[in-house]
């Protein structure tokens, strides 16, 4: 059996995700959504989906560049805003990020780079939640399944959201969905990047291409193949092992923190309810 890329039918996927977003808005009692728009394919796709679900007037796309962010990213983000006709705000995060990093210094360049990336992601989270309160909205997540499985995201940063419409789509599937939505070609064609420093690309940082990673993740996770079976199917042994370990190592990022069990009923353990209970909708 060959190790194929996960399939996707963009048309029915769009229907399901659009209905999901509408349902989340309905269940929370919020009519409006906020998304952080980077100019990359993930947030662009979420913006298109959200605009489709609730209308562009009800969507606020917040652009949050840092001093080193590429000009192309901002131009691409504006392309999305113009195409959708949604609301937008620009909040530069440099004057929030740099003083904090300067306040606590002493790291070498490598450690500082990681810190800066995390502080940027968390600062953007603060801006998004601040704007969501002002706009009377909830924050939509932009993490995809490839990132979530590899743990390629910042806890309480880019992973923070009210709900995750593309969280079960691999990067390769997401591109197909983005294409069907009409996300601009410039955004689809450029190498994916967290844009944390000039010239950064996800694929350089992860050490493999998204298609290769998605083939491996799809085999290991969705098809429950063993490493041996993946290798027998022609996948690179070293990369498969690395992916498997990385998925395991990042399990903690995908779960809520454990609570020390003491009482008869403990939230998250045996006090279990749907996220939106009857009467919890705003205004009800």
């Amino acid at each position, binding site marked *: 059996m060959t190790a194929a890329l996960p*399939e996707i*039918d963009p048309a*029915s996927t769009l229907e399901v995700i659009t209905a999901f977003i509408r349902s989340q808005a309905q269940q929370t009692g919020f009519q409006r959504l906020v998304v952080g728009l980077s100019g990359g394919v993930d947030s662009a796709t979420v913006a298109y989906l959200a605009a489709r679900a609730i209308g562009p007037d009800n969507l606020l796309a917040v652009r949050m560049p840092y001093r080193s962010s590429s000009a192309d990213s901002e131009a691409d983000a504006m392309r999305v805003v113009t195409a959708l006709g949604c609301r937008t705000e620009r909040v530069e995060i440099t004057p929030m990020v740099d003083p904090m990093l300067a306040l606590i210094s002493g790291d070498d360049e490598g450690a500082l780079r990681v810190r800066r990336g995390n502080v940027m992601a968390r600062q953007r989270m603060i801006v998004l939640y601040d704007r969501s309160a002002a706009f009377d909205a909830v924050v939509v997540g932009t993490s995809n399944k490839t990132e979530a499985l590899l743990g390629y995201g910042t806890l309480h940063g880019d992973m923070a959201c009210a709900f995750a419409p593309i969280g079960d789509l691999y990067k390769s599937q997401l591109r197909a969905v983005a294409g069907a939505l009409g996300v601009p070609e410039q955004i689809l064609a450029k190498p994916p990047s967290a844009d944390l420093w000039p010239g950064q690309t996800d694929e350089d940082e992860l050490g493999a291409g998204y298609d290769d990673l998605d083939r491996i993740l799809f085999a290991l996770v969705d098809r429950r193949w063993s490493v041996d079976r993946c290798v027998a199917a022609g996948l690179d042994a070293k990369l498969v092992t690395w992916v498997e370990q990385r998925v395991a190592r990042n399990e903690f990022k995908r779960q809520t923190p454990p609570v020390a069990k003491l009482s008869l009923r403990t939230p998250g353990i045996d006090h279990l309810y*749907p996220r939106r209970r009857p009467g919890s909708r705003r205004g009800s």
Partner: protein
Amino acid sequence: MEYRIALAQLAPRLGEVDDNLELARDWLRRGAAEGAQLVAFPELALTGYLLADLVPEVAMRSDDPRLLGLSREAPGVVVAIGFVEETAAHRFCNSAALLRDGELIGLHRKVYLPTYGMFDEGRFTRAGDRIRTHRVGEPLGSIGLSICEDFWHASLPMLQAHAGASLLVNLAAGPARAPGSSAGLAAIAGWHKMQDTYALLGTVAVAFCNRVGNEEGLTFWGGSRLLGADGSTIAEGPLYEEALVVGSVETDDLRMQRYSLPLLSDERLELTRRELDRIIAERAAIPPPDEEEA
């Protein structure tokens, strides 16, 4: 004679019993206006699906006036509807009620509670332990009720066919997976294969009512379906959208269908039981009685 059936492919609201009763009354009136003699609703239509610890809050007794009263909206019409049942002994079950003119004429408690993968039903509800059929009168005779996962166990619909059902009614809350991919379509195709097979092998009509709408991250796929006792598709609902799916089963055909294809009459039930007894004993590691070889 034609027996007209309406499948109310709606989206219940999670935990909102009053809202769902109102929805059910409305859809029941619509079904009756279409001339339906039976209106089927999805699994847990009065409560929604992902209830978790809301189960005791939404549960009702099978003689609850709210439940029985529902059927008074459409005099003479048989209603099949899913709800959370609390028994007199405070056992909480995922149940289906069969109602007519304010009376409970049948009750099925979901026997197979999926508790694997994405499903966690056995954690919050208890399994039923009866597989029965319920008489609704001519021209239909008897109905075999089941709930969603029950249909993934062929013994249940086949027992109901042997017990005399001429219509199997399955109430479902089936969540979609991998929409549009071959894996996602395979899940829907699996349901179609089951329905086709039970109709064909049981020479029995099949009504499948699956809900739509979203709960948490789940999207229910709909695609409700009505099949004749020859396995033909009489009516089929859309995917993901609310719809009242209406069609008629021709009850006069059953006589010649069962003459032409006498599978039920030919079934070797006593042989099946002997072999089942042997398999049960072996699985329990009880030595079987000495068998005389011919």
